[in-house]
């Protein structure tokens, strides 16, 4: 028995031993333009063991000097946000800049912003799974985690904006002494059900996907404990904690094929039901506005426009978080290749064009409907600056920031060079994230601040509590994401292994040949690469049949 602790081996591996630096930093080998050649999903010919060691290594080893200060900063911001929420709860919603005219502002802007970001995870998990897009393995776990954290942030705002927080339970159909029930005709109640269902189903999806990977972490901790016991060493407390916690969470998963079969069916079902779910949730969020009679809100384009915007903003956030992670974690680039980034850049371009189309169509319908208040909102509350026209919009800068960030900035992705440069993608993702926040601000505040009666018109100005609460929600999100990066499997280990070439039961690599003692008509051969059919191998013991 080797006396080298397995952790040491992993630490050496993570230090870069065995990692192959790309010859050309602009092309890691995944950017193959020939449609006849499949781009590798994992670079540097990683073995199954490499995948386990690298991904589990992130969860088992300290991630570097940047992590703790970043976490502390994020947690401090989250703490300030929590304090602001506490201040709001004991004082009232008057601590925000709301007024009689603008009674929804940053609160609901933040809600829609976060819930939109929360859509990419399920989109990647569910829709890309249904379309058999194998590249989803590069991002699906972290995107799902992001979804859950974003929905948690989203859930805060509608809950705290109600004013009389002690009545919040009345959104649920709970029997009560007054014998009253919720109003099921209200889109706000639909929203309660949609968002809570979405949060629950996303969590189940994320957790179910993690069960095998948690079992892998459990087994590794268990193996280290057994080795330590055999060597008579003291047991390491982190491994004992891992063995217990991951042991409980992985529910005794033992990688049985009969289990895998049901697991894959259940996963496909979850993907199948999450796809209409993700579309329904943001549609219902848009009903909060669309079913009202406020000019600028009362439009039928809202559901598809909100869904496209959610995918757009969600992918931007995935890129915003994972491009730095790609640089900060060793070997991360083997799993998240330049091609994956390029694919996501293309999605940003497409969905950016969709929201751009929706922005344009809103103007067309405002004009075509011949509804004067509607056209007024679009022209004089949003687009025409107040320095161009006396009735112009004081919030013109918000509108044009949104247009610049969401419609103009993704256009750089028409050029291949930009789609393949992580720095450009990150910058655009940042702009899109900002732009998507402004989109919700524009929809909510510019529609409300000048509705119907000019005598009621009122500007909205955020208070420090508004700003710090939003910053706090970013802190909560980042804190949770950093903890996820540190302690949980960041890539779906089992799924990544399953997309490696040697995972195919019909793969005929050199090492695989030794075990080939049968020529069997197996269905669904995957190897389209024109491999020779398996032959009897003289070296294998007892290949007789």
């Amino acid at each position, binding site marked *: 028995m080797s006396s080298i602790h397995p952790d040491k081996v992993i630490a050496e591996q993570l230090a870069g031993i065995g990692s192959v630096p790309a010859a050309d930093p602009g092309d890691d080998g995944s950017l193959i333009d020939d449609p006849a050649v499949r781009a590798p999903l994992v670079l540097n010919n990683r073995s199954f063991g490499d995948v386990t060691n690298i991904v589990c290594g992130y969860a088992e080893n300290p991630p570097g000097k940047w992590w703790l200060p970043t976490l502390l900063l994020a947690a401090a911001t989250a703490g300030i946000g929590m304090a602001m929420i506490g201040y709001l709860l004991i004082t009232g919603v008057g601590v925000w800049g709301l007024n009689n005219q603008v009674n929804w502002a940053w609160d609901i802007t933040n809600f829609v912003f976060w819930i939109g970001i929360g859509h990419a995870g399920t989109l990647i998990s569910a829709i890309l799974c249904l379309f058999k897009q194998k590249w989803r393995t590069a991002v699906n776990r972290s995107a799902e985690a992001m979804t859950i954290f974003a929905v948690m942030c989203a859930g805060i705002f509608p809950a705290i904006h109600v004013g009389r927080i002690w009545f919040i339970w009345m959104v649920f159909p709970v029997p009560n002494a007054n014998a009253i029930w919720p109003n099921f005709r209200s889109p706000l109640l639909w929203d309660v059900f949609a968002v809570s269902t979405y949060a629950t189903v996303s969590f189940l999806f994320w957790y179910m996907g993690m069960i095998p990977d948690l079992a892998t972490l459990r087994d590794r901790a268990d193996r280290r404990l057994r080795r330590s016991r055999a060597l008579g060493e003291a047991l390491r407390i982190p491994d004992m904690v891992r063995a217990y916690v991951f042991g409980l969470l992985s529910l005794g998963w033992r*990688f049985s094929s009969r*289990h895998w079969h049901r697991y894959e069916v259940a996963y496909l079902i*979850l993907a199948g039901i999450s796809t209409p779910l993700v579309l329904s949730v943001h549609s219902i969020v848009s009903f909060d506005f669309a079913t009202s009679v406020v000019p600028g809100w009362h439009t039928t384009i809202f559901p598809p426009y909100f869904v496209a915007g959610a995918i757009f903003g969600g992918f931007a956030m995935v890129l915003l978080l994972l491009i730095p992670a790609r640089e900060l974690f060793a070997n991360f680039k083997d799993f998240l290749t330049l091609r994956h980034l390029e694919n996501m850049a293309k999605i940003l371009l497409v969905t950016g064009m969709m929201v751009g189309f929706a922005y344009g169509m809103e103007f067309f319908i405002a004009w075509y409907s011949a509804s004067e208040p509607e056209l007024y909102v679009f022209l004089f509350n949003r687009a025409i600056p107040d320095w161009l026209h006396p009735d112009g919009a004081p919030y013109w800068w918000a509108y044009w920031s949104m247009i610049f960030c969401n419609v103009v900035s993704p256009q750089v992705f028409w050029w291949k060079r930009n789609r393949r440069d992580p720095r450009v993608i990150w910058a655009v993702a940042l702009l899109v994230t900002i732009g998507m926040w402004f989109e919700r601000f524009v929809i909510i505040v510019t529609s409300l601040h000048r509705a119907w009666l000019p005598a009621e018109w009122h500007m909205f100005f955020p208070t420090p509590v508004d700003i710090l609460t939003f910053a706090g929600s970013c802190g909560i999100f980042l804190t949770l994401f950093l903890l996820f990066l540190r302690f949980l499997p960041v890539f779906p280990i089992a799924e990544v292994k399953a997309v490696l070439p040697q995972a195919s039961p019909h793969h005929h690599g050199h090492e695989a040949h030794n075990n080939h003692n049968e020529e*069997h008509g197996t269905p669904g051969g995957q190897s389209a690469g024109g491999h020779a059919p398996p032959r009897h191998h003289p070296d294998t013991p007892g290949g007789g049949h």
Partner: protein
Amino acid sequence: MAVADYFPLPAKYLPRALQPAPNRHLAADGSPLHGLLAEFDTAPGVYHAAEHVRDAGFTAWDLHSPFPLHGVEDAMGFKRTKLPIAVGVIALTGAGLGYLMQWWMSAVAYRLPVQGKPFGAWEPFTPITFEIGVLSAAFTALIGMLALNGLPRFHHPLYKHEHFLASSDDKFFIYIETRDPKFDRAAVQKLFEQSGAARIDEVTEG
């Protein structure tokens, strides 16, 4: 999957007729044998070995792999799970109950006039009906999958072997249990050897 696997203690106190049959198979050290475990190094290797085991007519056996092997259903010869039916039935039931809840609360229990619309109109109930259907389906998919798999189960004789822990890393295993009516110590050993197993181990009970 025997009840005794989950509740080993109560099984002892069951009437004799209900107790699991005594194990005739013994390991080399004399303790009761639970099964034989073969290790394989590659996916094609274990896939073809599974075809042999299937063709030999075994029923109480399993293949353990770090990831779902493509086409393993055919290599092992088992039928597609009925889980989707359960999910469909429970999703529709959930959606129906969700609709009924909304109708009863809005049209019977608390008739709140909103915009002069009929109290029992179905249209506004659509979103929540759908959401409750999805929620029921999701829970059924996860819990049903675990229940059919016999999970959670926090112990298994296989984990007595340290090298079985590699099933979550990069090794593949075929395990034939002694409760299989066709189990024969020597024949299984030979089958494994012929299938190209890298190593074969006895797994004892307990």
